[in-house]
C-alpha cells in the first residue's frame, strides 16, 4: 500500500479533536428514519422502566404478600408480574428490531451516497486515493457509524434511563439509602472511564501487532525459498519471537485489565449493599424499611453493574465511530474537479479535427508533464504515440477523454472548445481499449454489451465477430454466457483485449483510443487484435499508444514524445530517413520483437504445463 494509505490508517489510531458538526450530521442521518428512532427510544426506556418495575413488584410480593400473609394480594401481584413480563418482551422485540433496522438503513444510505458521489468524482481523485482507503470507508467506517447511531445510542439511552429509573425507585422506597447509592455513582463512572481508556490503548497495540505478525507470516511464506537458500531460519525466528513477545505483553495486559474492570465495579457496589444492610437493618427496627425494601435495594445495586459497563463501552467506541463519520463526510463533501459548464451542450457526435492548442498540463505543480503542446489531428487520421514511460503518452489520452483538463491552452474538437460540450457527450462517443483491459465480473455477453447497453445480443455477437473475438468465445464451454471471473481472471490478456475491442466496436465511437498491451500475446491472438483494431480505426480519428512495430508502421502519423514535447513527427518512412530517435527505437524494437517471434526452442516454448512453472 502506498504511503498515503498508511498515513490515513495511522490517523485511525489516534483520537483527534472531533468537530461538533459531525455529531450533528450523524444525528440528522438517523433522523431520516425518525420513526425507527422514536420506536427504539420508547422501547428502550420502556425496557429500563419495566426492569425496575419487576424488581419493585417482587418487593411488593414480599411485603404485601408474604410478610402480610395475604394470598389474594400475592395472586394479584403475581398476575401483574406476568403481564409486566409480556410488556418487557414486547419492548425488547421493538428495540432490537427498530435499532437493527435503523442500523442497516443508515449503513445502506451512507453506502449509496458515497457510491453516487464517487461516480462523479474526477479521475484525479482516484489517482491520489488508494483503493484500500476507499474500501475501508465503504466497509468498516460505514458499519461503525451505523452501529453508533443505533446500538450505541440505544445502549447510552438504556444505561442512563436504567440508572435514573432504578435510582428513582430506590429514592421512592427509601430516600436516605437512595441518596447513599446516588453518592456512589460518580465513583463507579470514574472507574469505568479509567479502565476503558487504558484497555483501549492496549487493544490498539494488539491490533497493530496483529497486522505486523500477519505481514511477517506472509513475508516468510512468500520468501521461503530465499530463507532456505540463505539459511535465515534462526534469525527470522528470533525477530518474529520479539513480535510475539510484544503481542503477548499487550494482549495479556489488555485481558487482565478487562478482567479487573467488573470486579472493581462490583466491589464498589458491594459498599452500597453493605450500606443497605447496615442502615436498612437499623431502619427496619424502627419501621422505616421493609424486608422487601432490603431485597429490592440489593437487586437494584447488583444490577447497576451492567448499565455502567455498557455506557463505558459506548463512550470508548464513540471516538472511533466519530472519526469514521468524519472520514465518510469528507468523502461525501469532495467536489468533482471536472464538471459540466453551465451552458454545456449535448451533441450527438463529436466528429471533426482535433486540436491541442498550446496545452500545458501537470498532475503536480513541480513536475510539468506537457508544456506548450500543439498537435492537430485530422478527422479520420490514425496517430501512433511513441515514447518512453513518463513522456506524456497517457496524459494526452487522458486529456482527450477529459479525465483531466489542460491547465493552460485549449483542446478543440471541430473548432469548438471541448469544455463547451457536456462530459457525457464526449465520453459516450469515445471508445477505449486499455493496456490491461478491465472486464467486469459477469458473462462475456454482459461485458460486450457494456459498450452499448441498449444493443441486442445479435449486435453484440456481430461486434465480437468484427473484433475477431467470436472464435475464442464460441470455444469457451458456455460460449457467450461464460463467466469471465472477477477482473476477467479466467481469460488471457489477449482474450481480454479482444473482448474490450468488441465492446468498443459495439459502442460505435467517433474517437477511438487504444493502449496496446506490452505483455506478450500469442501470435494468433495478436493478428486478430490487429485486424479488429484496423476495422475500428477505419474512418475514425484514432490514437494508439503503440508498442508493436506493425501498429506503429500502419499509423498515418507517428508522434515521438520525449519529456512532454514532440520530439519527432511524421510517417514511418519519413522518420526512418531522419535517422533520429525513432530510427534507434525502431531498430532496437525490431531486434527484440524478432527474437521473441522466432520460436527459439521449438514448439514447446511458452507452454508452462510442466512442473517447472510451479516449482520456480
Amino acid at each position, binding site marked *: 500500500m502506498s504511503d498515503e494509505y498508511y498515513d490515513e490508517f495511522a490517523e485511525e489510531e489516534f483520537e483527534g479533536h472531533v468537530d461538533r458538526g459531525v455529531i450533528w450530521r450523524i444525528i440528522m442521518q438517523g433522523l431520516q428514519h425518525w420513526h425507527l428512532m422514536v420506536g427504539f427510544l420508547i422501547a428502550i426506556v420502556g425496557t429500563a422502566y419495566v426492569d425496575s418495575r419487576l424488581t419493585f413488584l417482587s418487593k411488593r410480593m414480599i411485603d404485601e404478600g408474604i410478610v402480610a400473609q395475604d394470598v389474594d394480594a400475592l395472586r394479584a401481584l403475581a398476575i401483574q408480574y406476568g403481564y409486566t*413480563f409480556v410488556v418487557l418482551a414486547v419492548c425488547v*422485540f421493538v428495540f432490537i428490531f427498530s435499532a*437493527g433496522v435503523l442500523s*442497516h438503513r443508515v449503513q445502506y444510505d451512507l453506502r449509496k451516497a458515497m457510491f453516487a458521489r464517487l461516480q462523479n468524482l474526477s479521475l484525479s481523485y482516484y489517482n491520489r486515493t488508494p483503493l484500500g482507503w476507499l474500501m475501508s470507508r465503504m466497509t468498516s467506517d460505514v458499519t461503525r457509524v451505523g452501529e453508533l447511531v443505533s446500538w450505541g445510542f440505544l445502549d447510552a439511552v438504556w444505561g442512563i434511563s436504567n440508572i435514573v429509573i432504578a435510582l428513582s425507585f430506590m429514592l421512592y422506597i427509601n430516600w436516605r439509602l437512595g441518596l447513599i447509592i446516588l453518592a456512589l455513582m460518580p465513583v463507579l463512572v470514574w472507574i469505568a472511564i479509567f479502565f476503558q481508556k487504558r484497555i483501549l490503548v492496549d487493544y490498539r497495540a494488539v491490533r497493530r501487532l496483529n497486522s505486523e505478525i500477519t505481514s511477517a507470516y506472509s513475508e516468510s511464506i512468500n520468501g521461503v525459498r530465499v530463507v532456505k537458500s540463505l539459511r535465515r531460519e534462526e534469525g527470522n525466528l528470533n525477530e518474529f*519471537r520479539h513480535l510475539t513477545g510484544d503481542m503477548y505483553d499487550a494482549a495479556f495486559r489488555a485481558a487482565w485489565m478487562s478482567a479487573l474492570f467488573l470486579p472493581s465495579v462490583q466491589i464498589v457496589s458491594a459498599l452500597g449493599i453493605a450500606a443497605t444492610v447496615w442502615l436498612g437493618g437499623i431502619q427496619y427496627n424502627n419501621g422505616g424499611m421493609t424486608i422487601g425494601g432490603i431485597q429490592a435495594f440489593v437487586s437494584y445495586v447488583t444490577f447497576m453493574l451492567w448499565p455502567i459497563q455498557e455506557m463505558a463501552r459506548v463512550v470508548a467506541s464513540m471516538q472511533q465511530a466519530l472519526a469514521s463519520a468524519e472520514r465518510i463526510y469528507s468523502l461525501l463533501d469532495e467536489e468533482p474537479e471536472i464538471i459540466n459548464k453551465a451552458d454545456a451542450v449535448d451533441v450527438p457526435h463529436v466528429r471533426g479535427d482535433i486540436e491541442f492548442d498550446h496545452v500545458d498540463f501537470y498532475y503536480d505543480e513541480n513536475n510539468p508533464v506537457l508544456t506548450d503542446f500543439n498537435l492537430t489531428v485530422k478527422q479520420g487520421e490514425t496517430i501512433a504515440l511513441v515514447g518512453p514511460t513518463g513522456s506524456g503518452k497517457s496524459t494526452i489520452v487522458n486529456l482527450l477523454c477529459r479525465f483531466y483538463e489542460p491547465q493552460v491552452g485549449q483542446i478543440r474538437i471541430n473548432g469548438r472548445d471541448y469544455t463547451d460540450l457536456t462530459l457525457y457527450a464526449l*465520453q459516450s462517443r469515445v471508445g477505449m481499449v486499455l493496456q490491461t483491459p478491465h472486464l467486469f465480473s459477469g458473462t462475456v455477453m454482459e461485458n460486450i454489451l457494456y459498450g452499448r447497453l441498449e444493443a441486442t445480443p445479435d449486435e453484440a455477437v456481430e461486434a465480437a465477430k468484427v473484433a475477431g473475438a467470436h472464435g475464442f468465445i464460441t470455444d469457451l464451454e458456455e460460449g457467450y454466457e461464460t463467466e469471465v471471473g472477477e477482473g476477467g481472471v479466467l481469460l488471457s490478456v489477449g482474450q481480454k483485449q479482444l473482448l474490450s475491442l468488441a465492446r468498443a466496436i459495439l459502442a460505435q465511437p467517433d474517437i477511438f483510443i487504444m493502449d496496446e498491451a506490452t505483455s506478450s500475446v500469442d501470435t494468433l491472438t495478436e493478428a486478430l487484435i490487429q485486424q479488429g483494431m484496423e476495422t475500428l480505426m477505419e474512418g475514425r480519428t484514432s490514437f494508439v499508444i503503440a508498442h508493436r512495430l506493425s501498429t506503429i508502421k500502419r499509423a498515418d502519423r507517428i508522434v515521438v514524445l520525449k519529456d512532454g514535447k514532440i520530439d519527432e513527427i511524421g510517417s514511418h518512412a519519413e522518420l526512418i530517413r531522419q535517422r533520429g530517435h525513432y530510427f534507434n527505437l525502431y531498430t532496437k524494437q525490431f531486434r527484440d520483437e524478432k527474437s521473441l517471434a522466432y520460436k527459439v*526452442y*521449438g514448439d514447446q516454448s511458452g507452454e508452462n504445463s510442466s512442473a517447472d512453472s510451479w516449482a520456480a
Partner: protein
Amino acid sequence: MNRDESNNKVYDMKKVVSPNKLTGLWRLTDQFRTVYLVAILAVGLAALAQTGIYYLLGYLVDDILPEPDAILYLPWLALAFVGLAAGQGGFTYMSGRWAAYTAEHIARRLRDYLYDHLQRLPFTYHDQTQTGELIQRVTSDIDAVRLFYSEQAIGIGRIIFLFTVNLLGIYFLIDPYLAMMSVVVIPFVLIASIFFFIQVGKAFELFQEQESVLSNRFQENISGVRVVKAFARQEYETERFEEENSKKRWVGIRFTSLHGLFWPITDIFCGGQMLLGYWLGANMAINGDITIGQYLAYAQMVNLIIWPIRNMGRLITQASTAAVSYTRLRDIIERKREKLSEGVFRAQTDLAGAICFNDVSFSYDTSLKNEAVKTANTVGYMAQANDSDQRNKIPVLHNISFEVGEGQTVAILGATGSGKTSMINLLPRFYDFDSGYITIDGVDLREYPPEYLRQQIGLVMQEPFLFSGTIRENITYGVYREVTDEDLFAAAKAAAVHDVILSFPDGYSTLVGERGVTLSGGQKQRVTLARTLLKNPRILVLDDATSAVDTETESQIRDALKQILGQRTTFIIAHRVQSVMLADLILVLDEGRIVQRGTHQELVNQPGIYQRVYDLQARIEDELAAELMADNGG
C-alpha cells in the same frame, strides 16, 4: 516472564497433537494445566461467593433482624457482605487473568511454532499450498483457539458452576421441591439457544457473503473507473450497486429479526419460570414451609440458574468452530520438516566444487494436491490407493549425467519447463531425487547436511524476493560475518546496482518492500545478485538472474562477473547466447533430458537447438537491414 522464553527453544507442538479434537485442545494446555485449572476453579469459587451473598441476605432477615440487639450485629454483617463481594470479585479477576495467561501463552506458542515450522517445511509442501490459505490459518485459526481458552471454555464453566451451585443451594438449603420446579424450562431454553445460535451462525455467514459481494462490486467499479468513465456508464453502475446494496440491507435486517425473535421469546419463557418459582416459593413462605429469609435468598439465586443458560448456545457453537480451527492447525503441525543437519559427512573446510551428476532422475511430488482432491471426492479412494505412488509424481528430469571440474562455469539452456531450475534445485538438497547419484568433491550429495550445502551454494533466483527492511539489510541478509562498507559496496558494484542505490535519498538505508520504495524488476534482481555475491559462495547459481535487466547493464554485470567466475564453480541459466558463450560447458535441456553438450565452438558447428539460437541473431540483423533499405527506397 515471557522475555526469558525467547532464549529458550520453541515449544514443540508435535508432541501434544492428538487425533481427537477435544483431547488435542486439552493437551495444548501442557505446562499451563495447573494455572488453567486454577482459573476454572476460581470461576466456581466466584459463583459460590455470589450465592453466599444471597444466602447471607436470608440469614440477615431470619436470624438478625428479629433479634432485639440486631443493631450490634449489623456492622459485622455489612462487613461480611463486603468480604463476600470482594471474594467474588477477586475470584472473577483471578479466573479472567489466569485464563488469559493460558490463552495468550498458547497462542504465542502456536504462532512461534508455526512460523518456524512453515519455514522449515520442505519445498514440496510450499509448492503445493497457497500462501493466502496458510496465512488465514495461522492468523484466524490461532485466534479461534485462543478464544476457546479465554472465553468459551471459561464461559461454559461459569454457566455450569452458577447453575449447579445455585441449584444445589436451593435443593439442600431451601427446598428440594422448589429446586426441581425452578428448572422446568431449562432444557427448552437450552435447546432453543443452541438451535438459535446455529441459525444465527448461518445468517451471519450469509451476511458476510453479501458483504463480500458488495465489496467486490465496489472494488470492481473503482478499479475500472476509467472504463466506467470512458463509456459514461455512471448511472448504470449506480443501479448495479444499488441492487447489491439493498440486498445487503435485507440480509442484515433478516439477521436482526432472528435476534428480535429469540430474545423476547426466551424472555417470556424465563419470565414464566421466574413467576412459577416466585409463586410457589411465596406460598410456601406464607404456609411456613420455608422462612421469609429463605424465600429472599431463593428469589435472587433463581436468577443465576435461569438467565445465563440463554448464552450457552453461543458458547457451544463458538467452541465447536474453535475445535475445527484446531484440526486445521494440527494438519500443518503434523507435516514433516526438512532435516537440515541430516547427513553423515562433517566437512571441515569449504567445498572445492567438483560436481558430478550420474544418471539422475527426478519427479515432483503432488501428493498434497491429490490429497485435497481426494478428500473432496472420497468415492473410489480405496481403489486408487495402490497406484497412488505413481499418480503423485510428475517426472521432470531423466537420466541426467555430466561432470564439472572445480572453478568451471556451466551454462544451461532450454525452454521453459525443460527442467533447468529443477536440476540446480537438487544441489542444495531442496528436493530429493528418485534415482542415480550426485557427488560434490567425490562425496555423495546425500551425505552432506543441507545446511552445510546451503551455506556453500549461492543462488540467485528467477523471481527476486526482497524482505521489507533497508537495502543494506537485504544485501547482508544471508551473511553471518561482520560486513564492512567496502565489502557491501563491492558486491553492489559487481551487481551494477551501487549507483542506483546511491541515487535514492536514503542510499543504502532506503526502505524496500511493502512500505518502502518500489524497485523495478531489474533493480530487484540486481539487489538479490549483490546479496548472493556478498555471501561469497563456493558454488554460484545464476538462475536467469538478469532477465529483467536491460542489455547495457547486463553486459556491465557480465564484465564484473568475469573476474569472479574463474574462482568458483558457477551455473548460469540464461536465454541469451552472449551470456553462455564463455562457459566451459554448455548443456542444452529439452523435456528433462540433456540433448546437447559441449563448448560454444563445438555446439555452434553442430546442427541442433544451440545452433538455431545462435543463427537467429544473424538472421534478425539481415532482416532489419532489408527492412530499412525498403523504407528508404519507398
